[in-house]
C-alpha cells in the first residue's frame, strides 16, 4: 500500500481491539493489511483490496456467491476470517482472465448463457474452476454436484452446467482422433 499519507482517527477508536498483520497472495500478487481478528475474508477482499467481484449473498455459507479459491480449494469467504488467510494463496474471479484473454470458464458462461443477473456468477465460476482443475472431464452429474454449494435464482442451472461442460471441453483441447477409430 503506497500513499502519501494515511488518515488516522482523532481519538484511538479501536484501541481495545488489537489488529493483526496479514500477508497473503491474491491472484498471484502479495498483499498485506492490518485487520481486526473478526474481519471476514470476503470483506478484506471487497473493502480492503477493492476486489468487488466476490459477492456476499447470504452471510450463512449457503449461497456461495462469495466463493474463492484458497490454496486451490473452493471456500466461502464470508465464513472465513481474513487472519486465516495469512500466508495462503487466494484466487478471486478477478484472477481468472488475463488482460487479453478470458478463461474458458468465462467464455463458456457467456456462450451458453450461464448467467442472468450475474450476482452468483463469480462464485459459480470459482467452484467450476476448482472442479475442472481436479477433474478435467466431468460428467453432468459431477458438475451438478460440484456446484451444489452455489445458489442461482435466475438460470435454473441447466445452462450453467452446459457452460462448465463447454469449458471442460475447450480446456481439454481437441480429442485425439485415434479414439474414435476402430469401433
Amino acid at each position: 500500500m503506497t500513499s502519501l499519507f494515511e488518515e488516522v482517527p482523532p481519538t484511538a477508536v479501536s484501541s481495545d481491539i488489537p489488529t493483526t498483520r496479514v500477508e497473503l497472495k491474491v491472484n498471484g500478487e502479495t498483499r498485506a493489511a492490518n485487520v481486526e481478528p473478526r474481519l471476514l475474508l470476503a470483506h478484506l477482499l471487497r473493502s480492503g483490496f477493492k476486489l468487488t467481484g466476490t459477492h456476499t449473498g447470504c452471510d450463512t455459507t449457503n449461497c456461495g456467491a462469495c466463493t474463492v479459491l484458497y490454496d486451490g480449494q473452493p471456500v466461502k469467504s464470508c465464513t472465513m476470517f481474513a487472519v486465516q488467510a495469512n500466508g495462503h494463496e487466494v484466487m478471486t474471479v478477478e484472477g481468472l482472465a488475463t488482460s487479453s484473454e478470458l478463461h474458458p470458464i468465462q467464455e463458456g458462461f457467456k456462450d451458453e448463457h450461464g448467467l442472468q443477473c450475474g450476482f452468483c456468477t463469480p462464485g459459480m465460476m470459482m467452484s467450476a474452476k476448482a472442479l475442472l482443475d481436479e477433474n478435467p472431464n466431468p460428467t453432468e452429474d459431477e458438475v451438478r454436484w460440484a456446484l451444489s454449494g452455489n445458489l442461482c435464482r435466475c438460470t435454473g442451472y441447466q445452462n450453467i452446467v452446459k457452460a462448465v461442460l463447454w469449458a471442460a471441453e475447450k480446456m481439454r483441447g481437441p480429442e485425439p482422433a485415434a479414439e474414435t477409430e476402430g469401433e
Partner: protein
Amino acid sequence: MALDEVKIGGLGASRRRVEDNRFIRGKGNYVDDIVLPGMLHMEILRSPLAHAEIKSIDTSAAYAIPGVRMVMTGEMMAARNLAWMPTLSYDTQAVLATDKVRFQGQEVCCVIADDPYIAKDGCEAIVVDYEPLPPIVNPMQAREDGAPVIRDDKVGQDNNVIFDWEVGDKDGTDKAFAEADLVSEISMHYPRSHPSPIESCGSIADYDRSTSKLTVYMTSQAPHIVRAAVSLVAEIPEHMIRIVSPDLGGGFGNKVPVYPGYVMSILASILLERPVKWIEDKSGNLISTGFGRDVYLKGQLAVRNDGKILGVRMHTDSDHGAFFSDAQPSKFKIGLMHAAFACYDVPHAHLTAQGVYTNKAPGGVAYRCSFRITEAMFFQERMVQAAADDLGMDQAEFRRMNLVKDDDFPKRTPFGFLTDSGQYEKCLQLGLDAIGYDDFKKQKEEAKARGRLLGIGISTMTEPLGAGNSREYDILGIKMFDSAELRVHMTGKAILRTGAKTQGQGHETTWAQIVAHELGIPAEDIIVEEGDTDTAPFGMGTYASRSTPVAGAAVSMVSRKIRAKARKIAAHLLEVSDEDIDWELGRFYVRGAQDRGVTIQECAMAAYSNVPDGMEPGLDNTAYYDPPNLTWPFACYIATVEVDPETGVWDVLRLVAVDDCGVRINPMIVEGQIMGGLTEAYAMASMQFITFDEDGNCVGGNYMDYLLPTAWETPGFELHEVVTPCPHHPIGAKGIGECATVGGPAAFVNAVMDALKGTGARNIDMPLLPDRVYEALQTGKDIFGHPPVKTDS
C-alpha cells in the same frame, strides 16, 4: 442490399449478452460495490417479537461505542413526520416502530457508524423493553371474535380486515351451479414464499447540502416510482432527487416496494451530511421485505357429465401481514386473481376475496408474476385436475374440451378480460406428444402393479402480462405506461434509454435487437442504459413481465419515429419526394431504382451535417407507450414424477414445457427465462416456503431454513415453442419471464397428486415435503400446510 437481420443482431438472433462482458469478469456494479468518499454505514435493529408494545428504548450504550455516529429511533422519525410512510396499496407502513412492533423483523432502530461492523455492534448495544402481545399468524385467527386489532394505529380500524372484494357474475354463476351435473370442490393454501434474489436490498443515500440534491443508489426495479415516493414522503422537490439503480442481483418483485431501510438511509444522510450506505443482510431480507402468495382458496367448478365447465366459484382469503403494501395495480385488491380460467371457455364465474392483517411481514409483491396471477393459475389448474378426477375423465381430454378454440378470439374471459390470440390446443398436443402421454399412462399402470407410484401432471394457462393499458392499470393513480428514448449519433451509433430496469433479463442485449430490427443499425452499435432517473425517461419499471410488452414496444415506436425522420432526410439526400422512397432493413432507396439509396448511417450523418431546409437537426426522439391490451402468452407444462411410497420422496422424471410467447426477440434469452422460471416453480412445489410458528417466529429466515434448490436437485427441462404473434404489440412479442413460475407449480403438484390417485387424498398443500406426501399416502387424507405449524410439546 437489405441486411441479414440475424447477422446484425436483430429479431430472432440468439445474440450473446453484452452485459456478460462485465459480469464474467467480476466487474458488475452492484449497490454494495459502490463506495463514496466519506461514506458511513447503517445497520437496522429488528424486532425479535411478532407482536409487542415498545415500553422503552435505551440507546446510550450504542452511543458509547467509538465510531457510532447516530442512532435513529421511531421517536426521532416521528418528530420529522417520517415514522410512517405510505404503501403502494393506499395503506401506511412504519418506517421505525413507535408504539408497537407488528411482525418479527420489523425495524425498531438503526445505527449509523464508521464501518458496518461498528454499526452492528451498535445495534447489539441497544436495549429495547417489549411487552409481548398475542400474535396472529393466519387469517382464521385474524377473523376470530375478540382477536387483537393489529392496526390500532388506524382510525376506524376495529378489526383485522383490510378489504372485502368481489368480481364476476354472481347470479349467472349461481344458475350455472344449479344446472350442473357435478360440483367439484377443493380447498388449499398457496403458502407464503419469498422471491429471495441472491442480492438482498440496499441503498446509498447521498444528500449534498450545497446543491440540495439527493442522490440515492439503490436496489430498485422501479426507480422512477421511488423518485415520486421519496419526493412525496420526504418533501424533497422531485427534480432534486436522483435515483440510480445500478446492476441488480436479481429482483423477482422483491425490489419493487420502497422499504423502511431506504428511507432511513436518506434521512441519515440528510442529518449527517455524509453518504450513508445500508446493505441488508439475508435474514433481514427474508423476514421483512416483500413476500409472495399466502392465499387460501375455496374453489368450486360446476361441470356437466360430458366434461363441459359451466361455472366457477372462487373465494380467497389472503394474508397480507402487518401492513397492506402489495405492489399491484390499485383498482384490483387481490391482484389479477380474476384472470383465473382465462384460457378456458367458461360462461359464468364469481370471485369473492377477503384480505386481512396478521403479525407477519408485509408484502404481497408480484413474486415473478403478474400480480397474484401465480395463485390464480395454480388454483385454476388444481381445480381443473380435481374436477377431471371427480368426473372420472382424462385430465388432458378435460382440458382439451374446455380450452378456448383458435377461432374464438378475441374472447372475453369469465371475469371480463379480453384475450386476443392463441393456439391452445396445439400447445397442449405438442406437450402431450413430447412427453409421450399415452405411453406414460400405460407405463404408470404397469409400474403400479409392481408397487411403484408414477404420476403425470399437466398445467395449461394463459397469463395477462404487460400492465397496463392505462385505463385500467395504475399504481396510486400513476398510469402504467412505459418509455424509450433513442439518440442516434452522427456516425450511426446510438444510445437507448428506457423506463424499465433490467435485473438479469438482458435488456442491454435485447433492446438493441429491437432497434436493429426497426432501423437496421447493428445491435453492437447501440448501447442501452437504464435505471438512472436523471437520464432515463419516466417509466414504471420492470416487474410483472411488463418490460417487453410495454417498454419493448416503446423501443419499437421510438425507432419508428427515428425512421420517419430519417426517411425525410433520405428523400432530401436522394433528391426525390418522400412518397418515392422505399425502406428495406438499414436502407432507404428510390422506388423502382433499388441501387439508388442511402443507409440509415448516411441519414444519421446528414441529420447533423446536411438537413433539408426547415428541418430541426439531430436524430433523437422519445416514445411513451400505452399498450391497448395486455399480452397473453400461453403455456403447457407437463411433469412426470415417481413417488417413493416408503418415504414420500418424489423425483421429477421429466418436465416438458411448451411456451407461446409470440415473437421471440432473442431465443437464447427466452429459453433462459423459461428454465429459471421452471426452477422457481419446482422450488415452490418441493421445498421453498416461509412459514411461522405459533408465536409468529419466522421459520424461514435464512438459507439454512429457507430451502432453495441447487443444481443437484433441479431437474432438467425440455423446451418447445409455438409462436402466435401478439396482434397488438409492434413486433408481436409477449411477456415470458414469469410464465413458468406461474404455470409450473401446478404441473408438479398435479403429477404427485396423480401418483396418489386412489388413496383418497385430493390435495397436499405446497411445498410437497416428503413427510406431507408420506402422511397423505398413509392416511388418504388431504394435508393442510398453513401456519401455525405443529410444534413438539
